[in-house]
């Protein structure tokens, strides 16, 4: 049964991540930009098309491995996620710190790939991406640690599910707000899509990637985005447990959809910030989440 949960995790994420991206694009187009927008299935076609294209590379090993590692790392992170409030067979083999480091591994793969492409734009992009990573990973970490402190355990299901365990205290509310603000940075959307800024550095780290490699990266980005959205739902939406696994998952996915709509609306009503400006905002977020963790130690 436990294995089943893992399979469900992977399948749900692999199958739905592009769909949710389609939702974002649709919402951005229809609600905010007064236009019809692409079909919901568009991201699937995009990925499929990229898989069939020629693979151009500057002939560097790291460049070729990077997308595969990135996708692999995000997939393994997803396997540990307690979707539908169920521990799965893997939960006991990792704790939240592992989760955080694994997430970073994906980012690192991305960066090394970018640096291997030898492109000045990719390097500018990876420099920014790294700053973003340094500054927002702690927010994610502290969200998880907030639960860990509350439940006095670093185990994934325990700490992930226990943030709202004792209701919404001040610390949880602060953390929720901080997470929501950082969400745009996690998923690389405006105002924090600084690393991939299309008009100035031409999608930054991915500039040299084409075809299947780019498809893997796109998929990685989609999965990452869905992971953060799902994590928000799992962590901050109080559990509505129906007792049926399938139903639980469906309810959670419903909430994920809402988070995506929020991402889309926020993303399309903000200009991109500069990295030095974003950095200041991140710093505020870090301090705020430190406060939240500090409060949670005292049980507030």
């Amino acid at each position, binding site marked *: 049964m436990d294995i089943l949960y893992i399979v469900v995790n992977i399948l749900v994420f692999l199958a739905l991540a592009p769909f949710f991206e389609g939702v974002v694009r649709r919402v951005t187009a*229809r*609600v*905010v*930009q*007064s*236009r*019809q927008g692409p079909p919901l299935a568009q991201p699937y076609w995009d990925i499929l098309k990229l898989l069939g294209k020629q693979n151009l590379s500057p002939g560097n090993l790291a460049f070729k491995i990077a997308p595969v590692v990135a996708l692999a790392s995000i997939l393994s992170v997803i396997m540990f996620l307690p979707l539908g409030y169920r521990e799965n067979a893997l939960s006991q083999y990792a704790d939240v710190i592992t989760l955080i480091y694994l997430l970073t591994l994906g980012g690192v793969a991305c960066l090394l790939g970018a640096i291997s492409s030898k492109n000045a734009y990719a390097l500018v992009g990876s420099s920014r991406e790294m700053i973003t990573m340094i500054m927002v990973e702690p927010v994610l970490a502290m969200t998880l640690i907030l639960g860990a402190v509350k439940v006095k355990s670093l185990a994934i299901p325990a700490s992930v599910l226990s943030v709202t365990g004792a209701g919404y205290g001040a610390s949880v509310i602060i953390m929720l707000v901080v997470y929501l603000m950082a969400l745009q940075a996690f998923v690389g959307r405006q105002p924090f899509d600084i690393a991939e800024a299309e008009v100035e550095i031409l999608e930054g780290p991915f500039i040299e990637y084409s075809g299947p490699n780019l498809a893997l990266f796109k998929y990685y980005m989609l999965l990452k985005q869905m992971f953060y959205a799902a994590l928000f739902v799992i962590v901050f939406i109080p559990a509505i447990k129906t007792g049926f696994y399938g139903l639980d998952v469906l309810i959670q996915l419903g909430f994920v959809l809402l988070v995506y709509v929020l991402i889309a*609306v926020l993303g399309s*009503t903000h200009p991109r910030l500069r990295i030095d400006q974003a950095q200041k905002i991140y710093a505020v977020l870090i301090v705020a989440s430190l406060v939240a963790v500090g409060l949670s130690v005292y049980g507030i």
Partner: protein
Amino acid sequence: MWLTSKIKQVLMVLKPGVVTLKYPFEPHPVAKDFRGQPSWDHHKCVGCGGCAAHCPARTIMIRDVCQDLRIMLYDGSRCTYCGRCADVCPENAITMTEQYELATNDKNDITVNMELFMLTCQRCGRCYNMETTNMIDKMGLKGYRYDSLEARAVIPRATEHLDIKMLEETEHYKRPQK
């Protein structure tokens, strides 16, 4: 400040709703006097070549095959649809149609090829120099015009007689490759 302007922005975008046109599944008509692809009425055309002489893009080329036969080729691929040809045409043989859906995979699809009978002086072989007050007529037609229709290139010289050398020059006319 931030919040109010965000609310304003949301209000701004809500009002118009989705405005996307259904084109190409439904036609989107053009304005009445739209300057689309020019069309020639070969029944009216007298072959004066005024359009060719006045086209800023020199997209109308003329080859006088013989004394009586003039071929005019309109190469739509570089036409700027300015309507100058329709303006100057003394016979109003050119109209700007509403046709703008000209995309094609073959340049030849947007050409107009006209074969015209010319009235020429039987004695000297030149076209009649008609109304001398007309600027168009002043422009040329003092002899044969030989544009390279195959290379779609204009040879900006009207010659008294056909020069084979000129033809060779045209065919070797090439742009630099780097």
